[in-house]
């Protein structure tokens, strides 16, 4: 990927990326903590290590561009404009939650910000993104629809059918593959017979762009290009971001399947946050200030969530039909 001068970001912008990534990081750590403390129920998948992909991509999008996310969705949600309050409140099952307590961690929606929902079905969000993009095209709206999904999702029939249809109809979609090299416990080499995932896009003649998902600036540049391509009516792009999951698949995962030391090594070498901090030369003071600010937001979200309104049992009967 050649970084054009024009797409280089200002230090200020990058600093705001850093703050957002740090917010996601501390939010996710808080989720782990609150789950372990017994506050949260259900199934939680955090995105520790994958912050740069969410931020880099979503900061190229307009509010009315849409995304579909996955079971691992918190980072996408925050990056696409959801407040930490609305997200945390949802994890606590409160009325104030982004899905009013009906969804939970795998079903986070924020229609006003173009978030069409996390999805607990691997690959389940992709066909809908083709449909959304088709609607934009038919209505001649200059909007883009973005699907996030993992390496594991590329093995689903839905992935294949969606990319095929999206390319056939040249809809304005971007398919962002967060290749974190694992599907739950299964390393990529055990779930797919190829190392280079861009070959999958070639099955549809789809353009692909590969990027280091731990480098937010690079992700942003790649996404800018991908989104521009799609928005201009040139059809979808497969954006492959190589990234790392710096924690278990789900909160509580003992990770028996991980080679010893792998996670420690990855944390030392592949953490996008220290990398950006270094690039920007953020000094201790500014860093502390950032940490303090972010911690306050996260703490506030927990307070907000805890003080949120509980659902009435019979609220369960609402919202089944429009």
């Amino acid at each position, binding site marked *: 990927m050649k970084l054009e001068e024009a797409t280089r970001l200002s230090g200020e912008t990058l600093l705001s990326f850093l703050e957002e990534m740090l917010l996601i990081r501390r939010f996710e750590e808080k989720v782990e903590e609150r789950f372990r403390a017994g506050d949260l129920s259900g199934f939680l998948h955090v995105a520790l290590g994958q912050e740069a992909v969410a931020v880099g991509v979503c900061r190229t999008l307009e509010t009315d561009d849409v995304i579909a996310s996955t079971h691992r969705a918190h980072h996408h949600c925050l990056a696409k404009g959801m407040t930490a309050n609305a997200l945390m409140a949802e994890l606590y099952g409160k009325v104030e*939650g*982004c*899905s*009013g*307590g*009906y*969804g939970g961690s795998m*079903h986070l*929606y*924020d*229609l006003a910000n173009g978030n*069409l*929902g996390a*999805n607990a*079905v691997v690959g*389940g969000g*992709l*066909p*809908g*993104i*083709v*449909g*959304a*993009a*088709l*609607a*934009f095209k*038919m*209505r001649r709206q200059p909007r883009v*629809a973005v699907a996030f999904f993992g390496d594991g999702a590329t093995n689903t*029939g*839905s992935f294949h*059918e*969606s990319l*095929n*249809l999206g390319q*056939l*109809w040249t809809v304005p979609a971007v398919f962002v593959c967060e290749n974190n090299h694992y599907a739950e416990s299964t390393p990529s080499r055990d779930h797919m017979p190829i190392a280079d995932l861009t070959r999958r896009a070639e099955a549809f003649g789809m353009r692909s762009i590969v990027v280091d998902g731990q480098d937010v600036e690079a992700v942003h540049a790649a996404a800018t290009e991908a989104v521009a391509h799609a928005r201009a009516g040139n059809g979808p792009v497969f954006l492959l971001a190589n990234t790392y999951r710096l924690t278990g698949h789900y909160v509580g995962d003992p990770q028996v399947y991980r080679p010893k030391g792998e996670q420690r090594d990855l944390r030392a070498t592949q953490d996008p946050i220290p990398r950006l901090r270094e690039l920007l030369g953020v000094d201790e003071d500014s860093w502390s200030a950032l940490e303090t600010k972010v911690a306050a937001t996260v703490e506030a979200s927990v307070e907000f969530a805890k003080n949120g309104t509980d659902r009435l049992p019979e609220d369960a009967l*609402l*919202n*089944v*039909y*429009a």
Partner: protein
Amino acid sequence: MPEITYREAVRDCLAEAMRSDPDVFLMGEDIAEMGGSMGVTHGLVDEFGKERVRNTPISEAAIAGAGVGAAIQGMRPVVEIMYQDFITLSMEQIVLQAAKHRYMSGGQIKVPLTVRTQGGAGWSPGAQHAEQLEGWLCHVPGLKVAFPSTPEDARGLLWSSIYDDNTVVFFEHRTLYPIKAEVSDTLEPIEFGKARVHREGSDVTIVAIGRLVHVALRVAEQAAEEGISVEIVDPRTLLPLDEDSIVNSVMKTNRCVVTHEAVTRMGFGAEIAAIVQEKAFDYLDAPIERVGSRFTPIPFAPVMEEYVIPHEEDLMAAVKRTVARG
């Protein structure tokens, strides 16, 4: 009043909706030039073009899912799954996505999608092109299910499906396409959850859907000759279901037979029987009988196929057994 076929009724409704509303469009395999495998969409591509009458690849999951996505954006897509057997390939998108987005989002999302599909035995299509699966969909909160038996109902219910803010799975029966009947001059939307009483009677209620409504009508004629007065109720929409009309009818006749082409076991008739025995318990003079296909896949050889699916004789026998009781 004009007479049109069931096929034309579906087509007319699609055409009228597309004419008046740019948000309505169609997706499905071979629906454009070929007009679909049953000729239902014949000619629509000429009027509306390939952008709105979209031939798709053979990708039942993506077809349904693209419908979900477009619907969430406020379009009113009508997607066609060529044979209902193939909704087995769309079930994830229909059941886990279309049906649940609204609920999972706490009411933020609407999915005004219509999934048209057809099927049915009686012409030797074999076991993978003849299944009747409407029962499955009725087990899914968030979906609506329609299964019209006449041209008028097909036209009016399809219109209501398109304009329903929820996902509707709309079942058509292959052998009904050529049937002709009068329809009102202008398209009248038909409200979901309102049964049609095709014939009033006093001795036994037949609850029938799809093709079996016509079988029931013939049986009722025959029965009348033998002095048995049959009332026929067609729920038309299975979800929501007009329980009141069915239960009230049984409270009057005190007997009930339910019939459909799907296999009896776990077919929609089980739900009808369960509801009726619960709500009209004190009124029932005979057990509710179910008349559906025998518990086999649909065989190819016509002689076996005929044996498996329900016919006049089967329904008549059930009516007589029921009336003979008590």
